C-alpha cells in the first residue's frame, strides 16, 4: 500500500509480519487489509473454539438429558474408578502447563525449548488417550458395551469424541514439533502457529475439566 493511502486511513493498521498469516490454512495475500491488526488464524481458532463449545455442549447436554434413565446396568457408580481417572486428569492438566510453556518459549524465540515442550505435551496427551483406551476396555469387560444402555451410549460417544480431539491434538503437536525441527515454517509466523495449537490444546483440557467434575465426581454425590 502506498504511503499516502496508509496515512489517509483512520483506523489501526498492522503490518506486523509475524501476524500476517497462518500455518495451517491460508496465505499472506490479504495482509494489506488486515483491519484489526490481528492474525487471521488466531481469530479463526477462537471462532472455531466457539463452535466447539456448542459441539461439546450438545454432547454433554445429551449425557445429562439421559442421566438416570438407563434401563439396564452397570451404572456409572458401578464402573467409575476415581483413582484411574484422576491420574489421567492430572496428566492432561500438566500437559496444559507444558503447552503454555511451549508458547512462552516460542514467543521468546527459543525454538528448541518450544519443540521439546511440544513433544512433552504430545506425550502427556498420548498417555491420556492410552488411559482412556484402558478405561474403555475395562468398562467393556465389566459388561458395559456400546449398546448396553443410554448411559453406555452417551458416555462412550461423549468421552470418545473428547479422546478423538485429544488424538487430533497429539498429531497436530507432533507435526508442529517436526516442522519446527525441520525449519520448514516461516520463523516469523512460528509464535502464532504454536499459540494457536496451544489454544486448541487448552480447550481440549477445559472440556475435560467439565466432564471430569460433572460426569465423574458428581456421580458420587449420594
Amino acid at each position, binding site marked *: 500500500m502506498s504511503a499516502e493511502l496508509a496515512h489517509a486511513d483512520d483506523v489501526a493498521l498492522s503490518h506486523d509480519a509475524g501476524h500476517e498469516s497462518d500455518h495451517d490454512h491460508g496465505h499472506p495475500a490479504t495482509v494489506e487489509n488486515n483491519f484489526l491488526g490481528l492474525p487471521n488464524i488466531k481469530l479463526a481458532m477462537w471462532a472455531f473454539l466457539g463452535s466447539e463449545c456448542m459441539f461439546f455442549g450438545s454432547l454433554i447436554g445429551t449425557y445429562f438429558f*439421559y442421566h438416570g434413565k438407563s434401563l439396564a446396568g452397570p451404572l456409572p457408580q458401578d464402573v467409575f474408578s476415581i483413582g484411574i481417572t484422576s491420574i489421567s486428569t492430572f496428566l492432561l492438566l500438566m500437559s496444559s502447563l507444558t503447552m503454555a510453556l511451549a508458547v512462552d518459549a516460542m514467543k521468546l524465540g527459543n525454538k528448541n525449548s518450544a519443540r521439546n515442550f511440544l513433544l512433552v505435551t504430545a506425550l502427556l496427551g498420548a498417555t491420556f488417550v492410552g488411559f482412556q483406551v484402558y478405561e474403555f476396555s475395562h468398562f467393556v469387560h465389566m459388561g458395559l458395551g456400546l449398546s448396553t444402555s443410554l448411559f453406555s451410549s452417551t458416555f462412550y460417544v461423549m468421552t470418545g469424541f473428547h479422546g478423538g480431539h485429544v488424538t487430533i491434538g497429539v498429531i497436530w503437536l507432533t507435526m508442529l514439533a517436526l516442522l519446527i525441527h525441520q525449519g520448514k515454517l516461516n520463523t516469523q509466523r512460528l509464535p502464532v502457529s504454536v499459540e494457536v495449537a496451544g489454544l486448541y490444546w487448552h480447550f481440549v483440557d477445559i472440556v475435560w475439566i467439565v466432564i471430569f467434575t460433572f460426569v465423574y465426581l458428581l456421580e458420587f454425590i449420594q
Partner: protein
Amino acid sequence: MASVADFAQAQQPVYHMERPAKTGLVDWLTTVDHKKIGILYGTAGLIYLLIGGLEALLFRLQLMKPDQNLFVGDTYNGLVTMHATTMVFLAVMPLIAAFSNYFVPLLIGARDVAFPRLNAFSWYTFLFGSLILNASILFAEFPAAGWTGYAPLTSRGAHPGMAIDFWWAGLTLLAVSSMVAGVNFVVTILNLRAPGMTLMRVPVLAWMMLVIQFLLAFSFPPVAVGLILLAFDRSFGTVFYQVNMGGDPQLWQHLFWLFGHPEVYVLILPSMGIVSEILPVFSRRPLFGQHAVIFSGIFIGFVGFGVWGHHMFTAGMGPIADAVFAATTAVIAIPTGVKIFNWLGTLWGGKLTFPVPMMFAISFIPMFTIGGLSGVMHANAPLDLQQHDSYFVVAHFHYVLVGGALQGLFAGLYFYFPKITGRMMSETLGKVHFWLFLIGSNLTFWPMHDLGNRGMPRRIYTYPADAGWNDDNYIATIGVFFMTAGILALVYNLLTSLKNGKVAGRDPWDANTLEWITESPPRVHNFDFTPVVFSERPLFDHKHTEGLEIPVPSQPEQIHMPSYSWKPLWVSTGALMVVLGLLMFTVVPFIWLLSLAGGVVIIGSVYAWVSEPV
C-alpha cells in the same frame, strides 16, 4: 465531477504468486479464487433448484386431484423429503454461499477471503455432501423420514434400507462445510475490510452475511451431534433414539431445532441484505435507518437461538416452556418489523425506477410480510396446536422461503449478474419470469392457508374427494406450472444473456458500494489498488461528494495472490472416504478400512497443505 471511470485509470498491480496459474479444467478443480468458487456454488445451487422444483412438481401432480395414484406411500414421502432437503441445503444454502463467496470480499474491499484454500475445502465438502445426499437414488430408494428426520422414523426399524444412511452422511458433510465456511467468513469480514471501513460502514449485505456466518458456525454443531448420534445408532448399535431402551425421541427434536431455527434466519437474512442493497440504488436514496437495519439483523441472530421450542409446542414440553418460547418467538417479530418499515422508509419519496431486480426486491416486502405475519400467529402456542402439521404451516414457510428468501436471491441474481459476467440480463425475459413466478407462488401457497384451516394435514399423499380440499389443491398445482414456466424463463435468460447480453461496464446500475468500482467481471485480484473508505456509501460519495473521492494511486501496487492448490480436494476426498466407510459399516465387511484410509489421506494432505507455499 469524479466518476466510476476514474478507476479504469489505475495501473494494474504487480503480482507475486508462488506458482503460475493453471488453465481450463485443472484451474476450476484447483482454484482458490473466491469468485470462481462462488460461481461453482451458484451453478450447483441453480441445478439443485431445478431438481428440487421438479420433485415439487411431481408431488403436486399427485395432489392435484383427490384419490390419485401417481406417487404413493414412501415414494411420495421420499419426494417430499428430498424436495425440502434439496431446497434448504442444496439450493438456497449454496445460492447464499455463492453470494457470500463472490460478493463479501468485493463488498468489503478485499482481494480474497481469509483462508482461500479452506474456502475451496468448504466447496468440495459441500459438493460431495450433496452428491451423497442424492446417492441413495442409485439404490432406488429415497430417505422418506421428512426433512426434519424425526426419531424414531430414522431408526433401522422404521427405515431398514440405506437411504437414511446416505441422508445423515450427506448432511454431516454439509454441516462440516458450513461450519468451516462460517469461521472463514467471520474472520474475513472482521479482519479483511478495506482501510476506513469501520463496522458501521460495512454494507448491509456484508453485515447480514456476517450474522449468518456466526449462525452457521454456532448452530450447526448441535445438528452435527444429532446426526452423529443417529449414525452411531444405525451403524454401531447405540441406543440414543431407541424408545425400547429408554431413549427419548425429543432429544433429536431439540438438537435438530437448536440448529433448525437459526437455519431459518440463515436462509432469510441474506435476502434481506440483498434487498437492503437494491432498494437504495433504485430509489436514489440512502437506506433509511441503516444502523437500525444492521442492529435488528444482529438481534434476530441472537434471539434466533432462543426460539427453537416453538417447533415443538405439540411435543409436550409443558406449559412453562411453551410460554417462554411463545414469548421469545413473538419478540423476534419486532426487529423484523423494524426492517420492513426501514425498507418502506427508503422507498418513501424516492425517485423509483423498476428494472427487474427492483421488482423482485419490492415484491419481497409484501410476500415476506405475509409469511412473517402467519409466523407470528404460530408464536401463539394454543393456536399453533391447531395449525401444527397442517397446510397452514406449509403456506407460512413457503411465503417466507419462496416469497422471501428465493425472491431476494432472484433479485440479487438479476442485480449482480452484470458484475459476475460483464453482461446484462434481458429485461423482457426477466419481467416474464417475475410475473409468472409472483402469480404462480401466490396461486400455489395462498390456498394452502385455507387448506390448513380446513384441516388438511401435511405429509399425506392423497385425500378423499369429499374432504372439501379439491379446489384449493387444484389451484395450488396450477400455480406450480406458472412457477415452473417462470424458472424456465430464468434459465433461458441466463443462458442467452451470457453470450448476447448487453455489455455492462463497471457500474451499470449507478450504485453505491465498492464492488462496482471493479471491472465486470472483476480481475483475479478484484481491486487494482486497495480502496480507502470514508462512508457507508463509498462509490456514491466518490461520484457525488467533493472531497470524499476514493484516491486512485499513481503507482502500481505490489500484491501477493494465493496460488492454486490441489490440497483442499484431497482433504475433502479423505472426509468423503471416512463417511462412506461409516455409512456402509453394517452392509459391507471391512469397509471401515476405507474410513481408516480416509483418515490417513486427511492427515497426509493436511501435512502437505501446511508445508505448501502459497
